[in-house]
């Protein structure tokens, strides 16, 4: 964000850039020609590195670092570089550390030699040196030293200087990735650091927490309030981590409570007439005081210069807070659109997501969503979507502007943009039925355009809209049919004809289909093939409907006339049908199609002829021709992203790119904890005012384990399983036992026990058997191990 401002700030930058680039280019060219080129021979560089003069040494190290970044081989210098690790000069030290970080993995054995010297630096007087050493040691990718690193972190955690403590916090995830088995120790360190007084130690500690154990919210309870308090002071990166941590924490610890709004009805003038409290149906969310504390602490962060922080705060408001909070977050989110194009694009993704659930909040900012001529496709797509999302909530004037805007871009030269804006108009009509007629008028005006892409897109959208709500669009179809005179695009004509046919079945008594067919029949020869196909189809439908109607008539009459004259009546009816205008029209169209040049058309005509050959049996034809069509639904394009977590990369990419589970590490938001299942709120009180007192993690853990074991005891007593447990524990002590012994013992127990408990005893027996077999297998494993060890010993002996 900053740099974009800088760009604006300096209008001459572009010129400066070119001038300076030319300058620098000239200089470097001069350099390459001259003798002081950048390349230096191996021996010369080695001599520099071995030099006793700090100045030469630094020069050598600089060259090595440069070569490292130029991807030139620097491994040969390893020993020469690393032996300088104990150099007291801080500058030298830094460069050596840089080298070590880069190459330690390539030569772990040599790197190990340097560990001693680095360890010494951990006790240096200068805190900067201590922090550097800690960072370097944890950053070397040599898994062997994980324990040493762990110890170093332990020392760092207790350091006087907050800088070193910060380095310790940052080293924790690195140590974890070196060796995940160090986790228990690391958790101890982490719980100390989370309670640190300095906000810039706590921040990295939270980052480390999210990295290694995001689910251990039991570590957070004590520090919840101090974290909330420190939130404002932290740097942006720590704020981000803390916001995320607290978002997840709040979801798990504060059940969602709601209450009905009560309204006090003042009844009368006199005091003895009581006020009446009435529960209304309005439900509002009640916030836990601790949660409210957090949300209020977030508020100032909405003014942060970091776009990520603003988005994070908004997501907290969205997922935790009441609508009032969210409303506050919307403005700053819109403010992100001022940022550079990359930020604008991602911010729009997030805005669209929120707008899907709360579109009305974005109406005041509608002018931010108007397209610019130089917007990139990713950006205008989202902007068009936003315009359609807010459309139903906008006032009339704004609605007309949005429509005009979309209409304007429907005439653009970019096919994608045309398509998108026409679809957008369709979505507007869909989401706002009251104003749908306007959208329709805009769409219908495009039909006679010469732009085929536009017309076919418009008709597709119109067709979808009509199909969704056929009943209310009778007039529209009539209008469309009228447009046939002016429409030239073959696809457009075909679509209109199809729509007319589809509508004929909806309202058979009162439809225009036969008339349209009559007119179309006149110009049949001049139509395009797709249109001809649709005309034949229309003719078939019209004829079928006619037959069905006549059939219904006939059956009515038949009931009246009795069965004797049945055969006569039928033949009379058939001739009546054949004489009817519609039958004649059908025959005429068939004739036309039969002699058409297209074999496809001829085939179709033949099919329909066969289907409708017998006027009496129309069922099969009805099944084929009048089948109900699935209603197409056109959701907002981002609808598929609904439910993805705000601010995440998975949201930006969409699930169709990254797969159903999202990117690795993507976490769905945890569901609200159910009322009654949340951790005790008193846990958070424990550290109240405890910022000063030392936090003792070990004790806490002990009490926790005691509590757990006690609870277990109680449970055991309740279940009456003491004996089982006892048996298990004795078994654990007695080592050498066979299955037979076990069986004998359990039998004894069974005998001793009451009759009612026999079932239990049996199950117990089964259990114990299983356990026993497990034990046996373990024993076997042990034996195997022993064998292996023997083998190893053998080998060693051989080798020696």
């Amino acid at each position, binding site marked *: 964000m900053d740099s974009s401002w800088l760009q604006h700030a300096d209008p001459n930058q572009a010129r400066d850039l070119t001038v300076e680039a030319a300058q*620098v280019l000239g200089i470097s060219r001069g350099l390459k020609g001259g003798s002081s080129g950048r390349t230096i021979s191996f021996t010369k560089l080695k001599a520099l590195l071995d030099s006793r003069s700090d100045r030469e040494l630094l020069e050598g190290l600089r060259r090595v670092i440069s070569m490292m970044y130029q991807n030139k081989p620097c491994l040969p210098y390893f020993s020469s570089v690393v032996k300088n690790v104990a150099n007291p000069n801080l500058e030298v030290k830094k460069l050596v550390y840089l080298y070590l970080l880069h190459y330690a993995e390539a030569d772990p054995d040599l790197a190990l030699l340097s560990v001693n010297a680095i360890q010494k630096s951990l006790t240096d007087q200068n805190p900067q040196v201590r922090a550097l050493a800690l960072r370097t040691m944890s950053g070397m990718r040599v898994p062997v030293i994980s324990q040493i690193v762990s110890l170093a972190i332990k020392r760092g955690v207790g350091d006087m200087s907050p800088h070193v403590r910060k380095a310790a916090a940052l080293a924790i995830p690195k140590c974890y990735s070196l060796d995940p088995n160090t986790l228990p120790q690391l958790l101890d360190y982490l719980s100390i650091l989370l309670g640190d007084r300095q906000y810039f130690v706590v921040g990295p500690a939270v980052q480390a927490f999210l990295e290694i154990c995001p689910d251990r919210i039991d570590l957070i309870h004590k520090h919840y309030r101090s974290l909330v308090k420190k939130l404002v002071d932290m740097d942006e990166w720590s704020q981000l981590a803390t916001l995320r941590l607290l978002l997840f924490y709040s979801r798990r610890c504060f059940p969602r409570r709601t209450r009905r709004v009560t309204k006090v009805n003042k009844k009368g003038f006199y005091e003895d007439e009581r006020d009446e409290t009435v529960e209304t149906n309005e439900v509002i969310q009640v916030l836990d005081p601790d949660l409210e504390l957090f949300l209020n602490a977030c508020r100032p962060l909405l003014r942060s210069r970091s776009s990520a922080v603003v988005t994070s705060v908004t997501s907290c408001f969205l997922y935790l807070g009441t609508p009032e909070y969210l409303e506050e977050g919307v403005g700053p989110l819109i403010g992100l659109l001022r940022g550079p194009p990359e930020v604008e694009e991602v911010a729009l993704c997030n805005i669209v997501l929120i707008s899907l659930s709360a579109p009305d909040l974005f109406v005041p900012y509608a002018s931010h969503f108007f397209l610019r001529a130089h917007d990139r496709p990713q950006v205008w797509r989202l902007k068009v979507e936003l315009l359609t999302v807010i459309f139903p909530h906008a006032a009339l004037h704004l609605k007309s502007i949005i429509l005009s805007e979309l209409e304007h871009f429907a005439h653009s030269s970019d096919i994608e943009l045309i398509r998108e804006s026409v679809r957008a108009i369709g979505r507007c009509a869909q989401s706002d039925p009251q104003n749908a007629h306007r959208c329709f008028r805009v769409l219908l005006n495009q039909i006679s355009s010469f732009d085929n892409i536009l017309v076919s897109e418009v008709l597709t959208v119109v067709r979808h809209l009509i199909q969704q709500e056929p009943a209310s669009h009778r007039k529209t179809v009539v209008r469309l049919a009228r447009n046939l005179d002016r429409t030239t695009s073959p696809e457009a004509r075909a679509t209109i004809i199809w729509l007319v046919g589809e509508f004929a079945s909806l309202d058979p008594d009162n439809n225009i289909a036969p008339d349209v067919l009559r007119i179309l029949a006149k110009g049949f020869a001049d139509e395009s093939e797709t249109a001809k196909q649709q005309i034949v189809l229309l003719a078939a439908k019209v004829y079928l409907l006619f037959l069905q109607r006549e059939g219904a008539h006939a059956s009515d009459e038949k009931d009246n006339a009795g069965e004797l004259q049945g055969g006569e009546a039928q033949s009379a009816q058939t001739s009546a049908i054949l004489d009817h205008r519609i039958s004649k029209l059908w025959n005429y169209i068939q004739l036309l199609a039969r002699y058409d040049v297209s074999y496809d058309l001829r085939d179709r005509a033949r099919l329909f002829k066969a289907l409708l050959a017998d006027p009496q049996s129309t069922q099969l034809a009805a099944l084929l021709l009048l089948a109900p069509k699935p209603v197409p639904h056109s959701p907002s394009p981002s609808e598929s992203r609904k439910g993805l977590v705000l601010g995440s990369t998975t949201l930006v990419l969409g699930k169709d790119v990254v797969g159903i589970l999202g990117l690795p590490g993507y976490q769905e938001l945890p569901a609200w904890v159910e009322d009654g299942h949340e951790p005790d709120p008193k846990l958070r009180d424990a550290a109240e005012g405890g910022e000063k007192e030392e936090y003792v993690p070990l004790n806490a853990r002990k009490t926790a384990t005691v509590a757990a074991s006690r609870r277990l005891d109680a449970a055991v007593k309740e279940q009456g399983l003491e004996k089982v447990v006892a048996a298990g524990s004795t078994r654990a002590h007695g080592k050498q036992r066979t299955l037979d012994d076990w069986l004998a013992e359990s039998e004894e127990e069974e005998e001793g026990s009451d009759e009612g408990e026999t079932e239990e005893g049996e199950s117990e027996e089964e259990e114990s058997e299983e356990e026993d077999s497990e034990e046996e297998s373990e024993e076997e494993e042990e034996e195997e191990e022993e064998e292996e060890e023997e083998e190893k010993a053998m080998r060693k002996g051989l080798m020696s």
Partner: protein
Amino acid sequence: MSVAVDALYIFDDHHNCVLEHVYNGRPPSAQTLISSFTSRPLPRPSILQLSDLAPPVTAYSISHAALLLVATSSKDAQSLAILDFLYRLVDVFEDFLGCPLLANKIEDNYEIVAQLLVEMCDGGTVCNTEPNALRESVEVSSVLGKLFTQVGLPGSSPALGPAHNFSSTLRPTVTPTTGPAIPWRKSNVRHTSNELYVDIVESLAVVFAPSGRPLSARSHGSIAFTAKISGVPDLLLTLAAPGGTNSDKNSEILRTVQLPVFHPCVRLARWKDSPGELSFVPPDGRFMLAGYETDLMPSSLNTDQPPSKSDKLFLPATVDLRPGLGASGTEFEARLTLNTNFPGVSSMGKSSTSRSGSGPISSLSFGGGSSGHSHAPSLEAIMVTIPFPGDVRSVTELKPSRGEANFNTFDKVIEWKVPTKDGASINGVATLTGTVAGPLASADAEDDQFEAAEVGKSNTMAGYYEDDTVANRSEKQQTTVNGNNGATKKAHANRALMPRSIAVSFNVKGWLASGIKVDGLVVDVKKSKGLGDGVRPYKGVKYLTVSRQGVERRVS
């Protein structure tokens, strides 16, 4: 999980790798990354999932001054955070290596770059991005060289190599303090000349409907602050918005400075209590103090009634375009209207023809106190941009009444530059005419009998948007009109070649679109520390309004 950067790459404009730094895991090499990256179609989104690479990675990229910066992550991350990190990286690099960030500067200072990268992001966890804090832990060996480049002496550019600057590196390192009192300001700042500069830059984003009425009009402001002052100063910057009397000053400020964001140093409580007052302890050097936006729209669009009268919105340059002129409808005329009668500027400034403030810095001191000393705002660098559809083959017979115009056949854009320093009066109207040539194979004259229907202006309130048509035409009328319309398909085809928008870019020095003024900048002597007695820092203010194709007019 929150922000985890696996690796960072910087490429130059030929996609050669300038820098590759691995933070965590086993990210792909720069070569494989860039080949996969460039295989994606243009324009590329800023976040790409490169699933064809061996460990699939997500690439976050920004481009800055001919450099492409890419950060990769194999896990889900907060998308904006990584983009933020990249921008912060650019800031820090520019702070340490000199302002236009170039590939050469990075290549020549790898040891500084390496230290910065390790300091800013520790093992993939972003931790320290404050330039001032980084100054304390990263040694800049070529301080002298940097100084000289800033002054503008080419000879001592850092490109000459570090060997020349050794004397400066061997100075004793500053002993770091045990805990930073202020995270964004380094300790022990000393300056011989104490200076404070405020640069307020506003960037216009205005869209006009074809009718000429504004659709959206905003001005995006940012306040850049340069503090070169010793010790730990406590500053108070007071902003004033136009039109506000003393009583409703606060509301005016809140209306003018919308959706602000602030540098962490700004005391938010103070701003909340008395808007317009920025109280802060600045970092050393140049930084972005605040950002804001101003809505310049005269009235809200979100009403049920169409605005009755035409609304006024002052802009120094506006554009209009009439398409489809001439016998065959292939000609167009663009009009540029310039107006330097800036509102809110004293008449003295208006009448003075000689603009003394033509230098790059028109700073003013607060000595006099009043803003009447302001130089007349100067309008510069005017360029009109007309983008054409892709089908347009060329645009010929370009005739500008002032300046010069070129058609760029690659981008299909006309760029028309109008000089403002030729001595003549700037105000007035300039025109540009031209003829558009479409694709060669456009002769499919078949369906001439079908009449072209003029696009109907159907919705009831479209009068605001498009002026020249009757707003509420009934359906019947429309059909009859359409029947008589003589336009042929050919004309329609030509119409499709006409530009759909026209935009103008310019700079105005000494004027802000929002009308914001710096009312005062005070060093609070009681709260400040380390600033010597009687030291009165020099204070300068600069206003600049820019439009980067920011004033745009739709063409019907």
